[in-house]
C-alpha cells in the first residue's frame, strides 16, 4: 500500500511538473507582452513623457485632459464615431456571417471547400492590404467602381467616395464586414455543430419547416454564440484603427498622419491614441487615451452584457 501511495504521488508530481513547464512559455509571453505593457502604460498615464526627455510625474492631468480638458471634445467625438460604426456594423456582421454559416452548414452546399476558402480568405488577409485594395477600388480617378458606374451610365462625373463623409463611412463598413464575415461565420459554424441532432429531428417529426426550425430551434440554441460575437464585436470595433487609417490616410511616403476622412467621421479612439503617441509624441496622454478607451469600452460591455443576458433570459 505504501509503495502504491508513493507511486501515485510521484505520478502526480510529474504531471504537475510537466503542466507547469508547458505553462511557462505562455506565462513568460503574457508577462512580457501582456501584463507588463498594461501596467507600464498605466504608469505612463500619470507621467509627462515624450520618449526622449526624462519622465515627469503629473498626477491625473492626462486623464483630466482626455475627459474634461482640451482633448475631451476630440475623444468623445471619436467615441461617438465608433458607436455610429458599431450600431450598423455589428448587426450587419451578425446577419452576413450567420447566412454564410447556414449555407456552409447545409449538406447540399457545393462546392463546399471552395466556398469556405473564398469566405475565409478576407479574414486572413492583412488589414493593411485590405485597406489598400479598397482605396484602389474606390479611388476618385482610377477606381474601378467609378469606372463601372460611368460605363453603365449611372454617373456622369466621378464620385469622390473617400472625400465625402457618408460614402466614406459606408466604404469603411463594407470593408469591415467583408473582412470579418469569414471568421464570424466560423464561430457560428462551431455553434451550429454543437446543436444536438435529436432536437432537429424532433422538430422535423413535429412537422416544422426550415424557417420555423431556424427561428424556434436553431437560433435559440446558439444564443451564447450570439452573445459572444456581440460582446467581442463591440470590443473589437472600439479598437479599430488600421482599416480606416489605411483607407483614409494619404498615400505612402507622405508625412500626413490623417484625421479620419471628411469631417473626421471615421476618426476612432485608437487612431487618436496612435496620433497622440506617434505624431504628437505625448506618450503619457496616449496612455491616458488607452485607459479612457478601456474604461468606456468596459462600461458599454457591461451594459451590453446585462441587456443581452436579460433579453435571453426573458426569451427562455
Amino acid at each position: 500500500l505504501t509503495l502504491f501511495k508513493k507511486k501515485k504521488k510521484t505520478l502526480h508530481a510529474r504531471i504537475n511538473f510537466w503542466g507547469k513547464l508547458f505553462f511557462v512559455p505562455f506565462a513568460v509571453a503574457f508577462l512580457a507582452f501582456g501584463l507588463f505593457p498594461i501596467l507600464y502604460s498605466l504608469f505612463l498615464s500619470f507621467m509627462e513623457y515624450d520618449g526622449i526627455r526624462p519622465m515627469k510625474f503629473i498626477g491625473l492631468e492626462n486623464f483630466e485632459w482626455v475627459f474634461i480638458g482640451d482633448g475631451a471634445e476630440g475623444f468623445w467625438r471619436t467615441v461617438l464615431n465608433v458607436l455610429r460604426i458599431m450600431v450598423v456594423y455589428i448587426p450587419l456582421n451578425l446577419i452576413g456571417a450567420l447566412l454564410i454559416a447556414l449555407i456552409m452548414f447545409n449538406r447540399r452546399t457545393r462546392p463546399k471547400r471552395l466556398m469556405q476558402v473564398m469566405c475565409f480568405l478576407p479574414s486572413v488577409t492583412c488589414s493593411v492590404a485590405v485597406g489598400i485594395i479598397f482605396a484602389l477600388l474606390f479611388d476618385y480617378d482610377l477606381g474601378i467602381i467609378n469606372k463601372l458606374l460611368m460605363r453603365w451610365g449611372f454617373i456622369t462625373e466621378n464620385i469622390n467616395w473617400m472625400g465625402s463623409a457618408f460614402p466614406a463611412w459606408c466604404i469603411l463598413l463594407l470593408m469591415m464586414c467583408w473582412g470579418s464575415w469569414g471568421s464570424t461565420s466560423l464561430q457560428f459554424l462551431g455553434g451550429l455543430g454543437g446543436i444536438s441532432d435529436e432536437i432537429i429531428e424532433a422538430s422535423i417529426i413535429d412537422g416544422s419547416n426550415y424557417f420555423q426550425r431556424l427561428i424556434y430551434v436553431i437560433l435559440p440554441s446558439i444564443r451564447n454564440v450570439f452573445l459572444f460575437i456581440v460582446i467581442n464585436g463591440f470590443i473589437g470595433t472600439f479598437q479599430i484603427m488600421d482599416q480606416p487609417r489605411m483607407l483614409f490616410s494619404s498615400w505612402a511616403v507622405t508625412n500626413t498622419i490623417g484625421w479620419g476622412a471628411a469631417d473626421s467621421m471615421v476618426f476612432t479612439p485608437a487612431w487618436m491614441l496612435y496620433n497622440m503617441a506617434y505624431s504628437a509624441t505625448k506618450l503619457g496622454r496616449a496612455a491616458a487615451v488607452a485607459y479612457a478607451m478601456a474604461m468606456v469600452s468596459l462600461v458599454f460591455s457591461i451594459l451590453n452584457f446585462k441587456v443581452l443576458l436579460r433579453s435571453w433570459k426573458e426569451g427562455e
Partner: protein
Amino acid sequence: MKNPLIKLLAVILCLSLLLTGCGDKKKEEQNQPVSADLPPEEYVGTVTLWHWDAKSVEVCLEDFNKVYPNIKVEVVGAPGDYVDSLRNSIAGGLELPDMVMMDTTWRGELMEWGIFEDLSKEPYSLDTSIFLDYIVPTLYSTKGELITVPWDVGICGLAYNKQAAKKWLGTDDRKELEAMLPTWEAFAQKAAEIQEASDGKAYMTASAVPMMTIIANQDKSPLVVDHTLQIEKIQDNLKTMIMLRDAGAFRALKDQSPGYLASINSTNYIFWHCAPWVVPFTLVAYANKVEDSFGMIIPPEGPSISGGAGVAIVSRGKTEYQKMLAYKFLEWFLCTEQGAWSQRKNNDFYIHVKKAYEDPEYVAYGNMLFGQQDLGKIWFNEMVGELMLRPTTEVDRYIYQSDCHVAQQMAEKKDLTFDELWPMWASAYNSNEPDGYMIPKEAYETE
C-alpha cells in the same frame, strides 16, 4: 573550494571582470579628444548610418574607401517610420546609430532632442559657407547649434507636359510660359480660362498638396518669431490656395496616389513640381518614354523647394573617436567636391557643396524626357541665387501636416471657405499639442 562547480564559477567571474576592465579601458581611450587632422588611413573603425535609401549610399562607398580605407560604413535601411525606431531605441536604452538621416519635415523637431553633436564646435568646426547659401538657415536648431549636414538638393521648379501646355496654354516654349505666369494670380486666371475652354476637364495640376508645398516654401521669413507662430503668413498661403482652388487650378487627386502618377501622361494636366529627385523617382518612373515631351519653368513668384534631406551625428552614448569617424565620413561625402561627384556620378544626386557648382559639367543635367533642356542650368544657375529658406522650427512638421490636410480637404470640398478652412487648419495643428506653440482657440473659433 572543493566543489568543481564553484571553482569554475570563480574562474568565469574573474575572467569577466578582467574583460570588463579591458572594455572600459578601451572606451576610456576612445573618449579622449581626437584630432580632425590625422592622415585618413589612421582613422580606423566602423560607423553606422540609418538611411531610407541604403543602396544610394552603398554605391558611393567604394569612392569613400579609396580615401579612408579603414573606415567601414554600415548603412542600415531605415524605414519610413525611422523616427519611431529612433525614439524606441532611446526609450529602450538600445544602441543608437552613429548617423541619422533626417527629412525636412522631422528635422526641426529632431534637432531639439538633444542627442546630436553640435558641429560648429571643436574638433569639427564645420564651416557652413561651403554650402549653397539658401540651405544654411535650416541647418541650425533653435538653440543655434549646427546639427544638420545637408544631403540632397530639393530646389524645385515646375515641370510641364509639352503637349498639354500647347493644347491649353497655346505654347510649350519655356520663356513664353514664364512670361505668361509671373504670379499666382496670373496662374489662377489661366487656370480659370482652361477650365472653361475644356468644359472643366483640364487642370493646371492634379493635386493640391505639391502646390501648397511650393507656395509655403517660397516665403523666406521665419514662421516663428519670439516663440510665436506667425499665423498671418499661414493664412496668406491658405488664401492663395483658395484662389487657385476657386479658379480650378488643381484637382483633388492625392499626392503620389495612383491617380496622381497616372495624370503625368494625361494631356488634361499641365504642371508637376520638379525637384532633382522628382525627375528619376516620379517623372522618369511613370511618364511614357517619349523624347522631348516635358519642359521645366521657374514657378510663378520664384523658386521653391520640395524635399531634400540632411544628416546628423548622434552624440548620446558615443565616444569622441566614434563621432570623429562619423564626421570624417560626412565631411568627405557631403562637404567635398569628390563626394559631390561620387553621388552625381552614381545616383544623379546633387548635394550642397558650393564649389562643385563652379564646374559646368557638374551642373549640367539632362534627360531624354526633357529633350535638349538643361535642367541643371535652370536649378543651379537661375534659381538657386534667388532662393532662401526660412529657419527650421520645432513645429515645422505640424505646419506641414496641417497644410497637407487642409489642402486636400479644400480640393475635395470646393465650397469650403476661408472661415471654415482656417479653423480646420488650426485644430489639425493643435491636435498635435505643440508645447508652447498652441494657437489660442479665440484665434480660430467663432461664435
